[in-house]
């Protein structure tokens, strides 16, 4: 009897020896411009080749401008290096300007490259996203990137297993983002350390693929090695017909195989957590780590009332965020709203935000940015006229990239500015030095842009 993650792990063991980590085969290696240059330099230095260029895909996302401005010189060097390395080592790359370019974790599921039962790695911690389709996917560092490029394998110690079961129906106004923020609020930023989290239960089954991608995306914010959802009809319907999905007889064979991946009924987990979806509400983070959140109806907490081991962090966070305990979240005004990132910039997310925004105006003085997760998402959204809705409301409508999620391109907050953001990290300075980030769902971000302070869609008259 085995869990989903154990099954995928066992299928990929190339070599197992006592006292050593398992050597695992990597089915897909995703590469981007920021964490790879030193890995390619390493290959060049040791005169090594990329073992499987056909299992390696590169794109540019972290650094790229998302408007018509050229990249700053230092970013341009990295973008050029990516293109050069891809050419030299025979890797397919979707550069800026390519219709397939986008955030690495958005394009791979969209192209049907991410499939159940695969192992996927990338030099980016949010690789956990791909687990939404039943793949075992995790982030690696640059030395490991070089190792995967050269050998198509990676040496890893076997992770533990953890089940997070979300039963019940999600209330109206609650999105996948609220489910994962609720989970992290409960288990903490180290709650998943050493484990692969498997998200289970009726509320997870009821989510679209986009929602599941949002949940698995933030597994790393709970400290987990990876996050996964067992493949089901939602997964198969998502994959069928996508460019890299199997076709014809291969599709049938793949389906049979994918159906066998779900955890066996009697399989046990190293840790289990149960969450009742029906009591969830839209969440807003108040602090500088993703576990520091309250519901939109809540107030900024008093550190003295928090558990011992979180008090000091909370005090520092409130100082940084310039917030006073007891302040209702709805009274906190924002300077910017960012709808984007690999957490929430897929078509469904943009639709949810556009539904709130339609026919309304962004509060004056607020800078609103909508950055689609990929050029494919952008094209789909424009086909539905979502760009018009956002533009008419006063949002900027951009090209695909990470943008204000991490502030490596010119889209950054100014010191002291406060932002409602659909991204996944609210660390100090994440969106620009001195910037203050509050994580929310797309619908709450949209409502906040209209209201000028944190708001849920039903707060808007």
């Amino acid at each position: 009897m085995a869990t989903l993650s154990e099954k995928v792990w066992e299928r990929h063991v190339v070599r197992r020896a006592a006292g050593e980590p398992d050597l695992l085969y990597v089915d897909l290696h995703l590469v981007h411009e920021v964490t790879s240059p030193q890995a390619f330099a390493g290959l060049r230095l040791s005169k090594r080749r990329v073992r499987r260029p056909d299992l390696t895909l590169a794109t540019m996302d972290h650094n790229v401008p998302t408007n018509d401005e050229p990249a700053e010189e230092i970013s341009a060097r990295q973008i050029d290096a990516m293109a050069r390395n891809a050419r030299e080592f025979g890797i397919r790359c979707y550069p800026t300007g390519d219709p397939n370019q986008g955030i690495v974790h958005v394009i791979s599921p969209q192209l049907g490259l991410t499939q159940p039962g695969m192992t996927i790695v990338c030099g980016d911690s949010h690789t956990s996203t791909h687990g939404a389709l039943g793949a075992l996917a995790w982030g690696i560092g640059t030395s490991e990137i070089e190792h995967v490029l050269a050998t198509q394998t990676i040496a890893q110690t076997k992770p533990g297993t953890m089940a997070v079961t979300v039963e019940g129906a999600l209330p109206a106004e609650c999105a996948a983002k609220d489910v994962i923020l609720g989970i992290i609020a409960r288990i903490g930023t180290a709650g998943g350390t050493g484990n692969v989290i498997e998200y289970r239960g009726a509320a997870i089954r009821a989510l679209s693929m986009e929602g599941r991608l949002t949940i698995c995306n933030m597994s790393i914010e709970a400290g987990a090695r990876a996050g996964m959802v067992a493949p089901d009809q939602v997964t198969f319907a998502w994959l069928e017909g996508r460019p890299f999905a199997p076709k014809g007889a291969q599709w049938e064979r793949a389906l049979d195989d994918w159906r066998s991946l779900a955890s066996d009924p009697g399989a046990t987990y190293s840790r289990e957590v149960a969450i009742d979806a029906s009591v969830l509400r839209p969440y807003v983070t108040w602090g500088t780590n993703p576990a520091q959140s309250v519901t939109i109806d809540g107030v900024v907490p008093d550190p003295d009332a928090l558990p011992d081991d979180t008090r000091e962090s909370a005090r520092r966070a409130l100082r940084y965020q310039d917030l006073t305990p007891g302040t209702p979240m709805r009274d906190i005004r924002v300077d910017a709203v960012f709808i984007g990132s690999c957490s929430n910039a897929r078509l469904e997310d943009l639709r949810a935000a556009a539904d709130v925004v339609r026919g309304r105006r962004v509060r004056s003085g607020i800078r609103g940015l909508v950055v689609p997760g990929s050029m494919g998402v952008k094209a789909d959204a424009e086909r539905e006229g979502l760009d018009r809705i956002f533009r008419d409301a006063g949002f900027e409508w951009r090209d695909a990239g990470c943008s204000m999620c991490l502030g490596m391109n010119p889209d950054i907050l100014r010191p002291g500015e406060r932002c409602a953001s659909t991204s996944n990290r609210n660390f100090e300075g994440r969106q620009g030095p001195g910037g203050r980030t509050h994580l929310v769902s797309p619908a709450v971000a949209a409502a906040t842009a209209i209201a000028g302070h944190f708001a849920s869609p039903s707060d808007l008259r």
Partner: protein
Amino acid sequence: MEPVRNIVGRALPLARADVDTDQIIPSHWLKRLERTGYGPGLFEAWRKDPAFVLNDPRYRGATVLLAGANFGGGSSREHAVWALLDAGFRAVIAPRVADIFRNNALRNGFVPVEVDADTVASLVAAVRLDPATTITIDVEHATVQAPGVRATFALDEFSRTRLIGGLDDIALTLRHEQDIAAYEEKRPEWLPRVR
């Protein structure tokens, strides 16, 4: 990678919990194409505060970082390890080190030492009292010692061997090239190929 057997040196009592990699090295430093030169970016935002412990001249030359729980969480950026190395650090001692940071550290000869919170607290107290306190990390026996403190930490056999031998991971794996090729023969046909 250079072999690492022992780290003997003074320590910096950072003593904060949840130090994420964005704090260790902010994202704008990630635009470099090299593995070196990140030292000046280490804790860049916090360093602007003159009272920040890294600015305290008494701790200049420290090679061991003493941190609170959950050190190195967040982004997978190996640059965090490179920045610590570039600034002269060789090890971090904390009650818990995040998974990806730990992997990255071990591949660069930077030693992640996980000991219980009380041991970290004793070390912090010792170096606050006397910044010249010497801390010894013995990689071979996986122990940490300072006057009045002695603790062991978890280090798997494989990581220990690699640290002590300064071994090249890729060369180690390529010894099993036949296993890799054999595995490739058996992969299902429907798996995607990018080109």
